């Protein structure tokens, strides 16, 4: 049953500059006393025009720029953009490259979820656990730096494979497995600490409920939708992930707690994938050079970014230049669904509810 948008006494406009909003957007909360009866969010306060920038440039340059759409989920933007060409021109990717793409992408997803824990706990006022999220995150950032040569923009996928510097030596592979173990133990302890903290649970349990029907209606995606019972993850549709044994995490509560728990459990699945990746990393080529750029019709690709569904589409002209580039990131629909989820909550909880979809305005306002 859909929530009513009731009468309001006052309006509290929040943002576009506000400590709870890591990036600029404008939620307007309509309140009766402390209770939110309506919410309206305006985006695009920092539009950068990246899609326009892509028009007519060589596809390699385009891919480099797609990585700059976001600093948290840079790999998935680049990977999905590369997949568009690979799909449009039927380019095969060597298995070793597929493994490394998955490993880098999943480590990135893990660090993204840990930022979410830090942010959410900061908003509920638990600074200690918020800061420990970043302590838990640091070993994975170091690992990403060691694997790719960079902590943020890994520049791993290229058309037909991966960049040579992201191809680990045997020594590096063993080192990565060694680094992974203590980091995973700390992460498991940390997750356990969050989930057993009665005060934290009292702040997030039963808050900001998004039902399955609402999640489908407003097209919530990613962990936000899966926490509301929507069983969908684009990774199940991507061949590169078929080498790995992992589960899609689906919960049915739909509240802030479930959105946190879904990400916690997803972190454990990510660790499974990464460990399998390093253990079973096959030998072989990392790049297929047997292809030629040319005219390509507009092709569409979907991927599962840390926050949910990522859409990229473009075509190529005869010279291999990009035409009609389009990108849609998960936060647009996730924030839209949070407008509904926060109804009936107190203002403080409503801000938390918005944050619980892990909005990334850098991607959204690309």
């Amino acid at each position, binding site marked *: 049953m859909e929530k009513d948008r009731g009468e*309001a*006494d*006052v*309006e*509290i*406009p*929040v*943002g*576009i*500059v*506000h*400590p*709870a909003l890591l990036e600029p957007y*404008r939620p*307007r909360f*309509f*309140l009766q*006393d*402390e209770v939110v009866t*309506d919410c*309206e969010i*305006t985006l695009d*306060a920092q539009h950068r025009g990246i899609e326009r920038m892509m028009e007519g440039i060589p596809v390699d340059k385009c891919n480099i720029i797609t990585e700059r759409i976001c600093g948290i989920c840079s790999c998935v933007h680049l990977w999905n953009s590369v997949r568009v060409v690979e799909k449009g021109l039927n380019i095969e990717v060597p298995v070793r490259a597929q493994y490394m793409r998955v490993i880098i992408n999943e480590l990135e997803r893990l660090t993204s979820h840990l930022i979410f824990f830090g942010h959410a*706990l*900061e*908003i*509920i*006022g*638990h*600074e*200690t656990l918020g*800061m*420990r999220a970043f*302590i838990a995150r640091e070993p994975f950032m170091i690992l990403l730096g060691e694997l790719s040569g960079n902590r943020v923009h890994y520049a791993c996928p290229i058309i037909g494979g991966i960049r040579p510097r992201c191809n680990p030596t045997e020594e590096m592979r063993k080192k990565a497995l060694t680094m992974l173990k203590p980091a995973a133990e700390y992460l498991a302890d940390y997750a356990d600490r969050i989930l057993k903290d009665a*005060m*934290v649970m*009292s*702040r997030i349990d039963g808050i900001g409920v998004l039902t399955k029907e609402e999640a489908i209606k407003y097209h919530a995606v990613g962990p936000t939708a899966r926490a509301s019972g929507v069983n969908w993850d684009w990774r199940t549709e991507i061949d590169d992930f078929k080498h790995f044994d992992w589960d899609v995490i689906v919960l049915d509560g739909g509240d802030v707690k479930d959105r946190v728990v879904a990400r916690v459990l997803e972190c454990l699945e990510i660790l499974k994938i990464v460990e399998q990746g390093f253990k079973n990393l096959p030998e072989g080529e990392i790049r297929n050079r047997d292809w030629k750029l040319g005219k390509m019709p507009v092709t569409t690709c979907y991927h599962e970014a840390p926050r949910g569904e990522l859409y990229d589409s473009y075509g190529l002209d005869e010279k291999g230049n990009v035409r009609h580039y389009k990108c849609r990131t998960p936060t647009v629909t996730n924030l839209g669904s949070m407008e509904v989820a926060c109804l009936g909550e*107190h*203002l*403080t*909880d*409503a*801000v*938390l509810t918005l944050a619980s979809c892990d909005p990334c305005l850098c991607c959204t306002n690309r």
Partner: protein
Amino acid sequence: MDYINFIISTVVLALIALFFGPVFLGIERKIQARIQQRIGPPILTPGTWSILKFWYKKPFTPNSPMPKLYHRLLPATILAILFVLWLTNPEWWGILSLATLVAIVGIMKAEEVMYVVMGALSRSILSVTMPYGDVVKGAVTKGKIRRFFEGQSAVRFIKHITIASFPIYIGIFIPAVMVRSIYLEDIVLYQGDFLNLHPILFTIPGFIGAVVYFVGYVAQLNDYPFTIAKAKGDLIEGAPLEYGAHARGNYYILRGVWMFVLSSLFVTLFFGIPPVVNFTTWLGISQLVMHVLLTFVLPIIVSVLSAFGPILTFKQLYPVSFGFTAIGVFGVLLAL
């Protein structure tokens, strides 16, 4: 009445509060930083040096309908809360019979109301006046009164005063019930002299009172987890948001002094050691030193609690406050 001693006591106590209050702010930050596995700032930086720094910043006029009053609330409140400290000093006990718990509670209420006034007087540029074209561009809801963060903070402070203050007042009155007197002099004398102390804290009702007082102490300081009236997640900082430059320095002083004064009141009521200023004997000096040392206890415990507590919204605040009030009432019954 010895006017010289009276003046010396008054000035010395004010200086002690003004010095140690900001130090408490630093201790709080340092302990929290250590819990958060950070080095944290030097102890004098968040309070003492920050205040000096803010005093020498370019003056900042807040976006308030009455900026002068908004600024002057701070020194007025600092002066008011210093009276709580002064009234616990034996030199003040004879003045107009003011040294009673009723007078102290009255001053504490005035301090709380100051925050409501603060909230009502501030108009931060970070909320309603933040220029953004979201109303004219096809907004669904138009024409509602737009409230500043500080206005919402003032509304929350009213609720906070009503509900969250119960524990500290119950805690304050438990010693009075045990002694059967609201006069501070009687409460202190009941616990014996400095060399032969029988603190109320070490009795069952006294211990309950101390626990309840501590919870109220955190609520009075609007510290985590009782910081809903100035929750960073939505109201940024609430009522004091627009204090900048020298006024921000004064706000830090207010916060630090209030922390010291409430701790000092705790030591007087529950340890039976009032802030006596007597530099002529070693006993007098020892008593003052002991008093100051014991004032560190509550801020240290608060720092640990704050580091591990999320902000409680009113949904949690009401039951917590009523729960501790009920415990306090049980303490009162035991004291009877």
